[in-house]
């Protein structure tokens, strides 16, 4: 009896990791070229936007809120950055200067919707769901307006060079170089390792995990999510905290939009729409509670990996991609049911 319980507890506490392993095994068998350097990089490459949006969502969900605007802000930033780069290049700036200036400007502009949501939630006590939904609607409308509903073309090719570069290029036995493709004869096999955009994402995620886990800001975030009244009485300035949390969420989402622009050298309002569902599901699978006060960045990353492996694996196994939505829905329900039925299994310490 005891040992059976022990096994159940073991599985219950680590079901997400075990599920990911199960997925990896299944897709390695059925997926064409899944188990290769390239396959793994495709998983991670698809994951970059998702990691950023879900990290943003983690901060908000830990406070007990929800951010429905992340996908729209991503599309918004993709459009804004593409427009700015194009405009500056047309105005005669060098592509490199234009891209750097556009990135800085977009990050600043991209934070504005977050400030609005944070103001609505913190100051006017509007439900997070509605505040971010309204902000998202406004932002989506503006990006449709700016882009005319289509794609923003005319981004210089340099963006492509940056967005789709790799950290390491290795031509076996010949040369090894960082960030730029080595000058080798045409037809030579060059192994590309670690997309640059993944490096940026990883840095941001590690910083975010550190902030949430190790700093006073992070502890306050958990405190507010656990019990807002108690947090107020403990002297936390919750108005300012909400403002920062939602701005941070918008900032991460903008970064995802900028990365989209660099990778696809275009900006479109719908760039992030399909990631909204996935980002929330990733956070919930990762063990966060929608009631606030629980959740970690690493848990979220694990949840996102499950989704990203699923997406890529299904495609490589030749299953129509739209079956992904069914699978994501079922996994979400499964995750919540496990959480509901075996709370003592999972939250051992509480």
């Amino acid at each position, binding site marked *: 009896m005891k040992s059976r319980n022990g096994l159940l507890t073991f599985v219950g506490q680590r079901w997400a990791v075990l599920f990911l392993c199960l997925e990896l095994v299944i897709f390695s068998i059925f997926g064409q070229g899944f188990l290769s350097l390239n396959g793994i990089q495709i998983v991670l490459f698809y994951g970059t936007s998702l990691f950023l949006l879900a990290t943003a969502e983690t901060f908000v969900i830990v406070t007990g809120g929800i951010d429905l605007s992340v996908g729209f802000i991503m599309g918004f930033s993709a459009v804004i950055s593409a427009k700015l780069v194009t405009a500056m290049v047309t105005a005669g700036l060098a592509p490199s200067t234009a891209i750097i200036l556009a990135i800085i400007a977009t990050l600043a502009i991209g934070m504005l919707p977050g400030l609005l949501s944070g103001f609505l939630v913190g100051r006017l006590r509007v439900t997070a769901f509605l505040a971010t939904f309204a902000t998202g*609607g*406004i932002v989506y409308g503006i990006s449709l307006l700016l882009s005319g509903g289509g794609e923003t073309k005319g981004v210089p090719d340099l963006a492509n060079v940056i967005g789709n570069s790799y950290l390491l290029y290795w031509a076996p036995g010949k040369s090894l170089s960082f960030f730029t493709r080595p000058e080798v004869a045409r037809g030579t096999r060059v192994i590309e390792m670690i997309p640059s955009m993944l490096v940026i994402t990883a840095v941001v995620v590690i910083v975010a995990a550190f902030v949430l886990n190790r700093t006073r800001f992070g502890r306050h975030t958990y405190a507010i999510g656990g019990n807002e009244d108690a947090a107020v009485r403990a002297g936390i300035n919750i108005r300012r905290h909400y403002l920062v949390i939602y701005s941070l969420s918008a900032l991460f989402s903008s970064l995802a939009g900028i990365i989209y622009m660099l990778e696809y050298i275009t900006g479109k309002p719908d760039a992030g729409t399909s990631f909204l569902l996935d980002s929330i599901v990733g956070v919930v699978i990762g063990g966060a509670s929608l009631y606030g006060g629980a959740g970690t960045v690493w848990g979220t990353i694990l949840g996102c990996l499950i989704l990203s492996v699923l997406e890529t694996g299904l495609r490589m196994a030749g299953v129509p991609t*739209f079956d992904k939505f*069914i699978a994501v*829905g079922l996994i979400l*329900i499964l995750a*919540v049911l496990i959480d509901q039925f075996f709370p003592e299994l999972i939250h051992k310490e509480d």
Partner: protein
Amino acid sequence: MADHALTRERRSTALAVFGRNWALFFLLLMIIIFFFTGKNFFTVSNIQTIIYSATTSLLLAFAETFVIISKGIDLSVGYVMGLSTIVCAGVIRDLYAVQFGVHWPAGVAIALGIVAGLVASLACGLASGLLVSRFRVPPFIATLGVLGVAYGVTLHGSDGGFPIAFLPNILTQIGNGYVYYYNPALHAYSFFSPPLGTTGAQIKDMIRLFPNTLIVTLIFLVVLWHLLKNTRFGQHTYAIGGNLDAAVRAGIDTRRHLMQVYVLSSLLSGIAGIIWVFQTGQGNFVPMGSNLELFAIAAVIIGGASLNGGKGRIMSTLVGVFIIAVMANGLTLSGVQTFYRFIVTGVILIVAIVVDQLFPDLL
């Protein structure tokens, strides 16, 4: 002194009346503005167009009203509508179209298609109802899961989002028909179809009144208004949304009731999908970006319901839906790009919730 108090009281009553019905005043104001700025806005045919195109949004918003009053949220309404559309149209096509070999009479095919659409939406409602009421899953997550599954099945049924065609013409004749037709050239009138002998050239000048969908809308409006306002079901919905614990102690079977609320919500969304088949004459999949559920929720909240539960009315939702519908139509006729729809809806929504937050005693 007494006079002074009286004036103050009167003023506060006026303010209260305005505050309680600000959405209605806003709707009237918008109609007045568009009357001046919009070309052909205030014409019989345009008003009928607004009503016609608001039919499905109305049903989705009504569905959402019940759920929101019970302190829940249903994110799946738009996708259940899409699923029902595809299932209904798919069954009709497979039974009717010659290419598929069966070729049953249109009436039988349509009847079976409607049943199939209803069954599909019922399944969604049972799933989210079961998760919310029995397993205590937060409604947001439960319906998000159902959304994912419904969306996947929809894409599957439509081969990745292609419209389902080869449906009988009778569908659009019903869905886009009018109750009353008058042909000025022949001085003839008829019901449900144009008068006999109407030529193609005369169709343009023909007077059409009362779209068939208006009748459907009115029936649902009256039935759901009665259900929410005058029946025990409605009272229990408010009670559960107002205070779940108190409702349990008052002896309400909250599990069964929540189940019914989510099933009702999904069924209404499914009916919206079936009406959509009748209006478009094909199984047109509702794309992800159209955010139907968000507009439905916005309409309910603009109408004055609260996400904290226990508050909301069918008639207020009606006003909320028409604020969005009139705005979309009026902006188009005023020559403004339709993209503003999202922006303006967002702004009105913010105004609605801020008014609700700042003056709770007013409303």
